[in-house]
């Protein structure tokens, strides 16, 4: 197999030239935008893409049709990429810059029990939301991680009569809209007990988590080589011993990753929690005691309240939530790469 290695990369000078022409294109587009009714940086972007494409097209004009197509395609592909990552960077940038305003020393240690949403930003906080999220995500994990991993073990180790069915259902359920899970728990649990509750929220999250955990743990368990399994049996080990002492320990970090990814997925779920746990202004730790707050529903509520300070609070909580997802992701990645290195 020959993977083309490329010493014939573009030289620094050529790259600078490319950059120079891109800047030229941007400047031209800026001038066009200034002299037209259009306005704003995004208009410059819209105009710049065709302008730079045309410039690069003309630069290689004499080299023939394929060179021209190549220049055009390269420019368009790069612009499309930049065009696409702009909103993501904008989301992350906005969350950080606007969220900072709401965060003060007491943001994590106060709740909204005595603070109306519109009051100044040096009062109140998200303690209740963090507690609620932790409780519900923890409960959801306690339910779903064992069930998900057992499903994975069933599909890869026991391979019993229901293997196909289990695999099909987990596959199918992993794409279920979260609102459907919320609606299910609402119409059974919440209506039956006539109360929103943390446990209802946890169950709806668990429903969303099981397929994620089951699928990723199946993927991980599939990577265990058959030799390792047979080696265990050849030494006279029972299947249960083999699974617990050989198979599961080999993929421990992979299973941790699957659980963490499951948590990352549900920690930001809003719709099902709106229907099951709702929102509450004070901190509480009892998941059976009526509505309970969480970070996503806090954001949702502060947004709906709609005045300047409450919206700032929403951004502040968004920053905390995004940070949480980021930490979980980095953690999963570190665990995975540690396993690869081993």
């Amino acid at each position, binding site marked *: 197999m020959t993977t*083309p290695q490329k010493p014939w990369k573009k030289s620094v000078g050529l790259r600078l030239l490319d950059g120079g022409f891109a800047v030229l294109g941007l400047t031209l587009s800026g001038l066009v935008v200034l002299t037209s009714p259009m306005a704003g940086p995004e208009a410059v972007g819209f105009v710049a893409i065709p302008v730079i494409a045309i410039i690069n097209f003309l630069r290689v004009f004499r080299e023939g049709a394929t060179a021209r197509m190549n220049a055009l395609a390269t420019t368009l*592909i790069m612009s499309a990429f930049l065009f696409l990552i702009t909103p993501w960077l904008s989301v992350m940038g906005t969350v950080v810059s606007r969220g900072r305003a709401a965060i003060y020393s007491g943001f994590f240690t106060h709740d909204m029990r005595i603070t109306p949403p519109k009051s100044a930003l040096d009062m109140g906080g998200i303690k209740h939301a963090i507690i609620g999220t932790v409780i519900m995500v923890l409960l959801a994990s306690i339910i779903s991680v064992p069930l998900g991993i057992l499903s994975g073990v069933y599909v890869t180790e026991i391979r019993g009569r229901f293997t196909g069915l289990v695999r099909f259902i987990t596959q199918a359920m992993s794409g279920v*809209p979260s609102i459907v899970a919320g609606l299910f728990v609402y119409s059974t649990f919440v209506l039956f007990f006539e109360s929103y509750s943390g446990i209802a929220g946890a169950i709806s999250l668990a429903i969303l988590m*099981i397929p994620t955990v089951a699928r990723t743990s199946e993927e991980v368990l599939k990577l265990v080589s058959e030799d390792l399994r047979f080696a265990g049996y050849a030494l006279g080990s029972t299947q249960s011993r083999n699974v617990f002492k050989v198979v599961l320990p080999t993929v421990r970090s992979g299973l941790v990753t699957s659980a963490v990814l499951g948590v990352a997925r549900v920690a930001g779920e809003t719709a099902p929690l709106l*229907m099951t746990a709702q929102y509450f202004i004070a901190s509480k730790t009892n998941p059976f005691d009526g509505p309970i707050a969480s970070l996503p529903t806090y954001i949702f509520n502060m947004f709906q309240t709609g005045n300047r300070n409450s919206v700032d609070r929403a951004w502040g909580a968004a920053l905390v939530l*995004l940070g949480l*997802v980021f930490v979980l992701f980095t953690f999963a990645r570190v665990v995975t790469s540690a396993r690869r290195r081993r």
Partner: protein
Amino acid sequence: MRVWGTVSDVAVQRRELKFKKPGIDRFFHFVVTTGALVSLLVLGLIAVFLFLRGFQIFKDMGLSFITGSLWEGTGAPGEPTTYGIAPMLVGSIVLSLVAVVIALPLSVAAALFIEFYTAPRLKKFLVSLLDLAAAIPSVIYGLWGFFILAPRATEWAISLNHLFGWFPLFHVPAPFFDGSPFIGGMVLAVMIAPIITSVAREVFSQTPPDQISAAHALGGRKWSAIRYVALPFGRSGIIGGAMLGLGRALGETVAIYLVVNIAFKTNLNILFTGSGNIASMIALKFGEASQYEVKALLAAGFVLFAFTLAVNMFATYIVNLSKRKSA
């Protein structure tokens, strides 16, 4: 003959030995099977439950539950009650289609860029960025859509209408451009683009390097190698990724709820204010719903569920097809 008989006897004995499981193994099997069946039950139960609960509505409303465009009444005796989800079904489809139409070309180009135009270290970083973008909670996308994107997108919508207003899709009956399917679709596009991009990139990364080097050795430039080798090779992966994105967009609740002016009407003028999808309708109505209306919402949930399931199954099938082809 005697010798043969002995050998097979031994073999039979061995097999019996192997089949007699020790008690601990039987217990282990029991636990694992129970766990798998419980998750099976929980997940399968949802579909069955939604269908059974919704069944009464399907029976009472008939086909007009899908085709009707009125949502009235509480189901109390004597009160005229009709439930039809057509506007929201159409809304779900319009919003997701706008999203896919915007996201697909950009995502494919971005996937090509990441796979074929970047150095390995930048590629690794960008793949992590994709994963992270896919994991940003939808409520944050909704917040951003409302405050950052919508004001700008409204301007773009006005320009689009100004230029192409003669085309029915971009026509508006009155000059109201806020909270339109166009803006909702754009937020969805930003949300599903990471999914489409990572699926497409993964498929592109499996393009046989031999074929790419063959293309170069025959005088193909990068674009030519992409156009004639990578794109045809990745075609089914691209379609599958787009379908996965479509599935995600169909079921999105909060982002739509925050960005779009939820209105129970069929709106095909994508630049005009007001639309909604089934998911956002459920979120809007469940709180004040009567018992009978909850059943109707469950029925709507079942329709959404079935629709998303079909799209996702198709997507998975296509992605697997392309994986098998490369294996």
